[in-house]
């Protein structure tokens, strides 16, 4: 099924604010096998100049995933989620995500194209604090593979 290429530029309402908890950061860091004290130990993070423990760089995927799910589940887009794989990912930070942050994520369809029968969706998710200060922008390419295609 082809995606609707006319939706380039569409922005989605922001997801509810995401509160970054210390235990969630620790759980995520443990899941990626990362024992860096800055992710686990408040005093170690503060010794580096951070307000509280900070999150690993890819933690932003949690917040952007919630917002970008509005895109992949948009019935107007017509994406076959069962055949979706992750094509590209980029994070551009103004500062690290820190425990206690209240983050608001807004997803926008940056680009849509069809290549060799694969539907390719580029999303940009801008993640800011509830005060509007930029924290990180996540850009992703997700690919819905053509039926019968190998990875």
């Amino acid at each position, binding site marked *: 099924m082809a995606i609707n290429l006319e939706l380039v530029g569409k922005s989605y309402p922001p997801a509810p604010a995401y509160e970054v908890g210390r235990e969630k950061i620790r759980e995520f860091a443990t899941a990626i096998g990362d024992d860096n004290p800055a992710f686990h130990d408040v005093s170690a993070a503060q010794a580096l*100049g951070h307000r509280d423990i900070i999150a690993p760089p890819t933690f932003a995927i949690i917040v952007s995933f919630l917002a970008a799910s509005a895109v992949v589940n948009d019935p107007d887009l017509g994406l076959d989620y069962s*055949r979706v794989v*992750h094509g590209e990912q980029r994070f551009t930070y103004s500062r690290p995500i820190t425990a206690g942050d209240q983050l608001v994520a807004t997803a926008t369809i940056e680009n849509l194209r069809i290549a060799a029968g694969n539907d390719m969706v580029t999303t940009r998710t801008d993640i800011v604090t509830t005060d509007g200060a930029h924290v990180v922008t996540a850009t992703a390419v997700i690919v819905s593979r053509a039926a019968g295609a190998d990875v």
Partner: protein
Amino acid sequence: MSTSISWAEVEVGTELPSLSVPVQRATLVRYAGASGDFNPIHWNQDFALEVGLPDVIAHGMFTMASAERLVTNWVGDPGAVVDCGVRFTRPVVVPNDGVGALIEITGIVGAKLDDGTVRVDITAKCEGVTVLARATAVVRLT
């Protein structure tokens, strides 16, 4: 911010200490729970085969997280990472054989940029095959 490496000292071509990351099915289940990405291709073999994959595959984001870990280990303060990006070129296949897969991560300082940052170029391989392309991290050093 205080990094363990200074911009003045670092040289283009410097190799970062490498990283070997074992991945088993349980690793993926744990990552699914922590990240909220419950796509069944990462834990349900029947489903993965049904949609044309060779087996359960690792979350691309798990591989990316491992690639960034190489950099944050090196730099000391993970808050130094200002930009990171990857392309996922090949899946990391994780068989249910009690062994799983091994992701080998290496990195090299690719460039020193004028704004006090350096770009690290990262390579991630599984069974000798490159699984990430254009994997880079830009870090701000003190």
